[in-house]
């Protein structure tokens, strides 16, 4: 037995430390003084990797008895669900992440780090995980926290039908309180990514027996909800009894809802909010030279997916998807739609962020209009093809659709765009039904997730209805083997396979943006915005 952390050291190193970006007063001062272009600033952050890590540490070390001052006002999209089992959006996770606690957090280096669980042990066969829980934790209602709460929470997560965690935790055969503050998980099969699964977005610990989590907030987290005004804002104050010494360092966090990212950015500019994380590239670049605001971006593995249903015409002819891939100019899309922020896509969900698994030799063929036309003609679409492209109305997706329409028009594909509100598009399973659609996928700490829910035969969110025996076998290998080399090989094969016949196009991976008032320091961006941690954030303004 060894501390689980070591298992992943190699992986972490490969992942690269480029993830990190720390927002510091010093840096922002520098930005104001010298930075001319957004590009420069990003480079500064990349160059300062190691230092960044230390800064985070030093920030945390500070004086532990610091008074809690300042309220961080954050702009986010309105939330709908507050019960951790049902949350999904960035803003919902962000709220829950500060009201409740996870057992384990994944830090910005993709290391599992302690939260409610202070340490953990894995059995040799990889089937038993034992977690020690922090002492002195109390619920917001004053009652003490115990292992029973963890057991109850995980039983709820894995037995409630129709929830995302029902499948995720199907591998768990038992959760037991093996001590007052010790809990043991038993698995059916080895899962190299189990600690990451324990840190799933929904795996926030609720008090045993809670029935009204969809209307009330009783967590152990760093902030208590003072006022929730649906569709408008949620106001939180520091939990004075929080179990991590010296945290949180803020007196409160207000999350103010904005339907409109442009309005949020205006508010940031006008000093009415302090932090915005969801914004288009255009808005992000407009904030570059604004005094008093520090901007930063980090790469993520989030991406927009263009997928064609492969189980019926026209997508059941591989030549059609091949032609569409050839018709797509990924570089132009990255430059125009994302204004160059982020990374070029290679039609697979295993992006360059996972540098242990990303295969740099897996490059989709360059754009070739003639070849695409020829393929379409072979497939029986010599006179062109008419198809509707469905897309949610958020982010740069309508722009992506507009650019694709133009690019594909050159090969004779006449695209009609249908933009729907995100909630409508995802709300009624329409996104799983349509032939051609664009879907946004958030960044995850490890790539297996995408394969399991999106691409293996019969996967729940297999929106392209992709079914390929070779792929399924490769994905299974990658997801269960404890041999890292085997996994790397499988992921490489998968990337080549998807470029060749996967009914998906991934033109780019996002960058995660953040812009914060200089009144605050100590914030690290997270590739998944919802998991941004406000505990170390300090008020340094006046």
């Amino acid at each position, binding site marked *: 037995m060894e501390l689980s952390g070591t298992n992943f050291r190699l992986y972490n190193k490969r992942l690269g430390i480029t993830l990190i970006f720390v927002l510091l007063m010093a840096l922002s001062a520098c930005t104001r003084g010298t930075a001319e272009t957004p590009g420069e600033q990003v480079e500064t952050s990349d160059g300062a990797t190691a230092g960044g890590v230390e800064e985070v540490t030093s920030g945390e070390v500070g004086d532990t008895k610091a008074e809690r001052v300042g309220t961080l006002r954050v702009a986010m999209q309105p939330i709908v669900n507050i019960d951790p089992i049902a949350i999904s959006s960035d803003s919902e996770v962000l709220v829950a992440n500060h009201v409740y606690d996870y057992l384990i957090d994944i830090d910005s280096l993709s290391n599992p780090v302690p939260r409610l669980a202070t340490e953990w042990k894995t059995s040799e066969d990889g089937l038993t995980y034992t977690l020690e829980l922090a002492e002195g934790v109390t619920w917001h209602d004053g009652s003490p926290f115990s292992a029973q709460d963890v057991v109850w929470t995980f039983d709820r997560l894995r037995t409630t039908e129709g929830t995302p965690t029902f499948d995720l935790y199907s591998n768990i055969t038992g959760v037991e309180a093996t001590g007052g503050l010790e809990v043991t998980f038993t698995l059916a099969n080895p899962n190299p990514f189990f600690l990451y699964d324990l840190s799933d977005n929904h795996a926030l610990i609720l008090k045993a027996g809670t029935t009204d989590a969809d209307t009330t907030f009783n967590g152990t987290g760093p902030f208590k909800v003072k006022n929730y005004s649906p569709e408008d804002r949620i106001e939180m104050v520091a939990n004075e009894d929080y179990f991590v010494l010296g945290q949180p360092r803020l007196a409160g966090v207000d999350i103010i809802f904005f339907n409109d*990212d*442009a309005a949020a*950015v205006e508010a940031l500019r006008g000093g009415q909010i302090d932090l915005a994380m969801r*914004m*288009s590239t*255009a*808005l992000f*670049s*407009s904030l570059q030279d604004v005094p008093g605001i520090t901007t930063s971006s980090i790469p993520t593995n989030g991406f927009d997916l263009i997928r064609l249903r492969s189980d019926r015409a026209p997508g059941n002819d591989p030549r059609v998807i091949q032609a569409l891939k050839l018709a797509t100019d990924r570089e*132009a899309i990255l*430059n*125009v*739609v994302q*204004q160059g922020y982020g990374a070029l896509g290679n039609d697979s969900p295993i992006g360059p962020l996972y540098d242990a698994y990303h295969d740099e030799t897996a490059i989709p063929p360059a754009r070739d209009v003639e070849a695409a036309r020829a393929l379409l003609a072979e497939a029986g679409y010599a006179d062109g093809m008419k198809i509707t492209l469905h897309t949610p*109305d958020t982010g740069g997706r*309508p*722009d992506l*659709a*507009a*650019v694709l*329409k*133009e690019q594909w*028009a050159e090969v004779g594909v006449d695209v*009609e*765009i*249908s*933009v*729907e*509100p995100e909630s409508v598009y995802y709300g009624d399973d329409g996104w799983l039904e349509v032939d051609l659609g664009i879907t946004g996928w958030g960044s995850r700490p490890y790539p297996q997730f995408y394969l399991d829910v999106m691409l293996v035969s019969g996967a729940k969110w297999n929106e392209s209805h992709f079914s390929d025996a070779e792929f399924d076998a490769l994905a299974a290998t990658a997801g269960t083997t404890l041999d890292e080399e085997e996994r790397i090989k499988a992921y490489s094969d998968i990337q080549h396979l998807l470029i060749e016949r996967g009914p998906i196009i991934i033109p780019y991976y996002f960058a995660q943006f953040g812009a914060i008032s200089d009144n605050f320091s100590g914030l690290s961006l997270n590739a998944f915005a919802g998991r941004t941690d406000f505990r170390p954030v300090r008020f340094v303004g006046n």
Partner: protein
Amino acid sequence: MPVQSKMSLTPDSPLSVNPSRISRWAGAFHALFSTKATALGTTIVLIFVVVAFIAPLIAPYGVNEQIYSDARQAPSADHWFGTDHLGRDVFSRVLYGASDILFLAGLGTAMAVMCGTAVGLLSGYAGGMVDEIMMRFFDSLLAMPALLLALLLLGTLGPSRNSVFIVMVIVYTPIVARVVRSVVLSVRSKGFVEAARLQGESIEWVLFREILPSVTPTLAVEAALRFSYAIFLVASLGFLGVGVQPPSPNWGLMVNEARPHVGQLPWALFFPAAAIAIVVIGVNLMADGVKRLLQA
């Protein structure tokens, strides 16, 4: 008390509604250019309509043509109104947008005017229960702010060009019908209509030859007003993202799409917004002219 005076008066404008068929049109035409303001309005509307038809001929670039190398450019000789974030020529898109607005707002208005006229004529002429029920129904539609009704309907129909068209017809038909009905009620009791009834004229003749022509002038003003509101509605729905779909060159949608870029690409927002304003003002000015024509 000797009183002696010599007086001169300028008579009211000698324009009148219908001197004869030909000169009636000439008179209308004259009236639409009678003052500087209405002349300006009429000119704007004429240019707008012409542009709507010949946009493909005069636009220097395609409506969705994306020149990546030219993206995000300020107005220049190559791109009079600059380019947007996707490298589309704003000038060309504004030109194409004219036809989008004309055919959506214009046809929507025309359809609403037609439906409203038909319903208003029948309801006003028939009177009684038919009239009562129609009017109560319309009251209930009009009890909702137009945009609210439009949003509800679009929620039901789903966002698309056709939905916007249908919504416009549903939202504006009651308004037009009420206007028409009120004119019908006043015309219905006039001697010439009663004379026609006494002469055994058919209902169609009475409605369409006796009553309708008298409704037409009011209808013209109403249609012009509706049209300017329709432009607004189409633009507002585009702005709220529930109307016509991208990459349509709808002016409201263009403003919405340009909004995140306003700091860097203000021209991409300014020109379509100005286009909306100018056309709405033009239509309003022309409507004033039509109104004056009626009052003369």
